[in-house]
Every structure is written in structure tokens, then in C-alpha cells.
């Protein structure tokens, strides 16, 4: 049997396992999009426009006669990769920021945390929108803006952890034998933080996927013909009364993905960071 107690606990957590499987399925669909879709995401078939779900078009077609299922599968590529890339970038920077702040202590810490506090109290999507005014809309703007606003939570989390860890005996020993600060931080402190950081990452990815679809829905995000779940919902909502499938399918796929990330995140927290429960 499995030796790892935490992993066993995770596998017993049924919602987390089912959710994890669903996320893997969505990721595989995104990767193998051309293989599983019957129509190209931009192929227009005006004769078949605004059709409800049928055998040929399992989620129906949009106002230009494009296959909604294909557009959602290809949209998963944009939504998922934007979510994952931005989360990785912001977690990386937040981690470094928090670690430096916590380890340095004193004045540096005070100033660095003041800056974090300022970012922390403002709604991050408001900042993201302001940044997009500066960088420009579209894919690049979204990625940079979301990556820039997500680091604050991580910085706080990592700083708190570093403050605890830095008093531990093995750190003191390392310092006593003359190991440099950078090396202590990377070799002796960071390895202890992977658990909480991975958990934070699983919560940051859905936050950013939601952020992307939020920005795309209000018309600031990806521009056509690129599709993400948010842009599909944006294209769908005006005709919603007569053709509800246009907003339902993207919305429900997004909802299930968000929910799955929550369950997986909770499961991972029990596994990797049991103290925080």
C-alpha cells in the first residue's frame, strides 16, 4: 500500500479526486483540441447558425454558425494557460518578495510590508484594469496585469512562514558556521515552504482564470477571433434570451473548473499543509 500518509488521505477525499480527474480531463481536451473536435473553432457555417445542441454540434452553434463545443475546447487553451502562466509568475515573484522581506527583517521588512498592505486592501481586478489601460488590452495585457496583481497574497504568506522558520535550530547552526544569507534562504528555508506554496498556487490558478474571464466578459480581454471562456460568454450574453446555450455552456464549464480547483486545493491543503487546518 501507499506509504505516504498524506497522499493516502488525499486519495480518500472523494470530491478532491473527482475534481482532480475533471481538471486533468479539461487539460487533456485543451492539449488535444484538434483531435477531439469535429469542426474548427473558426469554421463558419451560416446555414447552421444559432442552432441548439444536436448530434453534429453537441453544444450548438453561435451567431456565425461556428461550433460552440470547438470554441469552448479551444477556449480552454486560452483560459487554462493564462491562468497557469500568470499564477506561476505571480507566485514566483511573491515568494521571492516575501522571503526577502521576512528574512531581512527590521526596516526593510517594515517598508516592504507597507507596500504589500497598500496593494492588499485594493481590489486586485481594479488594479488589473488600470494596468491594462497602460499596457493595452488583449492577451499580453491580461497576462501582465494578472501576473502583477497576484503576488501580494503569496508575499504575505511566505513572509509569515519565513519568520517562523528562521528561528529554527538548523538555520541558526547554518548561520553559525558562516553560510551566506542567500544560501540559507534557498537551501535551508525555501525547501520547507513548498507545501504552503503549492497549495497557494492551486488557489491562485482559479483566481486568475476567473480574472481572465471577468476581464474578457466586460470586453477588456482577448479580442476575437481568439476565444476564451470569458469572451464566449461576452459574445453569448446579448442573445441570451433566445439562445441561452451561448452563455450557459461557457459559464458552466468555467463554474465546474472553478469548483474543481477549490476541492483539489482543499485536498492538497490537508495533504501538504495540515497545520493550517
Amino acid at each position: 500500500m501507499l506509504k505516504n500518509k498524506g497522499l493516502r488521505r488525499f486519495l480518500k477525499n472523494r470530491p478532491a479526486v473527482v475534481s482532480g480527474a475533471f481538471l486533468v480531463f479539461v487539460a487533456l481536451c485543451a492539449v488535444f483540441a484538434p483531435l477531439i473536435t469535429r469542426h474548427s473553432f473558426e469554421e463558419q457555417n451560416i446555414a447552421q447558425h444559432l442552432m441548439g445542441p444536436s448530434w453534429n454540434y453537441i453544444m450548438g452553434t453561435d451567431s456565425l454558425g461556428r461550433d460552440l463545443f470547438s470554441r469552448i475546447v479551444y477556449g480552454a487553451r486560452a483560459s487554462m494557460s493564462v491562468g497557469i502562466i500568470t499564477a506561476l509568475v505571480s507566485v514566483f515573484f511573491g515568494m521571492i518578495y516575501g522571503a526577502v522581506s521576512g528574512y531581512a527583517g527590521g526596516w526593510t521588512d517594515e517598508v516592504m510590508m507597507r507596500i504589500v498592505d497598500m496593494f492588499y486592501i485594493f481590489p486586485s481586478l481594479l488594479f488589473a484594469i488600470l494596468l491594462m489601460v497602460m499596457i493595452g488590452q488583449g492577451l499580453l495585457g491580461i497576462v501582465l496585469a494578472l501576473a502583477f496583481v497576484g503576488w501580494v497574497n503569496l508575499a504575505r504568506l511566505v513572509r509569515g512562514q519565513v519568520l517562523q522558520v528562521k528561528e529554527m535550530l538548523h538555520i541558526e547552526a547554518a548561520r553559525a558556521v558562516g553560510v551566506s544569507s542567500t544560501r540559507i534562504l534557498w537551501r535551508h528555508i525555501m525547501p520547507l515552504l513548498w507545501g504552503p506554496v503549492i497549495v497557494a498556487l492551486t488557489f491562485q490558478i482559479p483566481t486568475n482564470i476567473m480574472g481572465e474571464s471577468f476581464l474578457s466578459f466586460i470586453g477588456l480581454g482577448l479580442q476575437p477571433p481568439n476565444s476564451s471562456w470569458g469572451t464566449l460568454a461576452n459574445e453569448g450574453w446579448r442573445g441570451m434570451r433566445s439562445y441561452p446555450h451561448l452563455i450557459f455552456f461557457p459559464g458552466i464549464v468555467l463554474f465546474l473548473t472553478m469548483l474543481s480547483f477549490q476541492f483539489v486545493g482543499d485536498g492538497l491543503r490537508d495533504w501538504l499543509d495540515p497545520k493550517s487546518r
Partner: protein
Amino acid sequence: MIKVVAKRLLSAVPTLLALMTLTFFIMKVVPGGPFDEEKALPPEIKANLEAKYHFNEPVWKQYGRYLGDLSRGDFGPSYRYLGGRTVNDIIGDALPVSAELGFYAIVFAIAVGIPVGVLSAYKKNSWLDFSAMFWAMAGVSLPNFLVASILVLVFSVHLGWLPPALWEDWRSAILPVITLAVRPLALIARLTRASMLEALATDYVRTAQAKGLGMGSVLFKHALKNALVPVVTLTGPLVAAVITGSFVVEFFFAIPGLGKHFISAVTDRDYPLIMGVTMVYGVIVIAANLLVDLTYAWIDPRMRVG
């Protein structure tokens, strides 16, 4: 106590100043000005416009001018409605609408979220608890536009009970308020449940039960009173959730509030309006956080050491 208040108030000033400076310089580095239209303006007209709005001055001078105007409560002209409405006019019209929407949403979220959290904790691990917590989890994951479209389809299109958009009478407020309240409600219910569970395990609750008090009295008078203290900290995230949520909700229901103006200002590159609305949001957020700190100091005397 007065000292704490004064200190917090003072510490809000640099935050606001920083926000103002940040938005000002973000807007200044943006490529393209408000007068770059698809049809190029004649150079003389453009020069005149730029002179009128002081674009020909050095940046630091424009910054000083903006600060001076702001300190007098003047947000300047809106580029979109040149010569007509000022940013002050727009904010004056839109802020009450958004404030009303946000206020109702928060009241609704509290009125439903706290009882749900209390009951879930009381009936821990029952089907009621499981379904409530599942919906609380779903509430955090539901995109606003999905909630809004389901509500509109059911209550406006299908049943025809409520108007599907606009902001006119109380009936038109119901759907947007519910949409906006979903996320705060879920957050409140989850946190209330967690902190009620802690409170229910304490000795003073056991004492209250042991001396034969009714369950209602134990739950609401003894346990809830203490369990609500951590819930107060949610005010910050709640205000943030309501502000960002209002962007989608006002866009979806065509409500002439601050969020809708903010989004169209961003699309139109109406910089003074963007800056004005951002400042209003900044003041609201800072005030909310200030209020949390003060409430805390009021509830918990240990926090009064400033």
C-alpha cells in the same frame, strides 16, 4: 481611542496620495492621447485642445495642477463629454446608484449568510450542513454572469415576474442585488460556520448549556456574539468583492452606476474619469478598512494599543 482614530486617519493620507500618483503616472505613460481619433484632427485644433487641457505643460506641472484640483474636490472635465458633463457630475449621478446596489447586496448577504452559517455549525455534518457548505463553495466559484443569466432567464423571461435590466423601481433592483450578493454571502456563511464551531466548543457555551438556557439563547446570545468578531474582518474583502462584482453586474443589467462608467471610461480612454472613479473607490476601500480597525478596537480592548 481618539489617538487610535487619529493615527489611522493620518496613515490613510499617504495611501491615498500614493494611489493618486500611481494612477496619474499610469495614465501619463499610456501611448496615444484622448484626442487621437480615427479621423485625425487638424493640428491647430489639436494644439488648442491640448492647451486648454494643459497637455502642453511639463508632466510635473500637470501633476501639481491635478493635485491642487483634487484637494478642492474637482476631478476635472470628462474627455468623453467634452464641454458638457464634468467627472464630478458623472460621479455625482453614478455613485448613489452603485452605493445603493452595493448596500442592499451586503445587507442581503449578511441577513442570509449569518443564519446559514450558524445553523450549519449547530447541525454540524447533517445534510443541511453539507448542502449549505456545498452551495457556499459553489457561490465562490460561480461566475457572476452565469448567476445573472440564470436569474434573468427564470424570473424575467420565463416567469415574467421581474424586469431583466435597468434601475428604476425596487423590482428592478432584486435580480442585480441577488447576483452581487452571491459571493459575499458564500464568504460570510463559510466564515460564520467556522468561527461558530470554535465558539460552540468553548467552556462558556458549555456552562450556558449546563445551566439550562434554551438553545436559541445559547446560540445567538452567547456563541454568536463572540463568533462574529472574526467575521468583522471580512468587511475589507466584502467591499472589494462588491466593487469588482459591480463591474459585471452593472454591465449586465445596464445599471448607470460607477462600475459601468468605469468600464466605458477604460474603453474610451477617458483618463480624468478613470482617475476620478479610481479615487472614489480608493476612498471607499480605505474608509472600509478604517472602519474595520475601529470596530475591532471597540469590540476588543486589547487592540486599542495603537
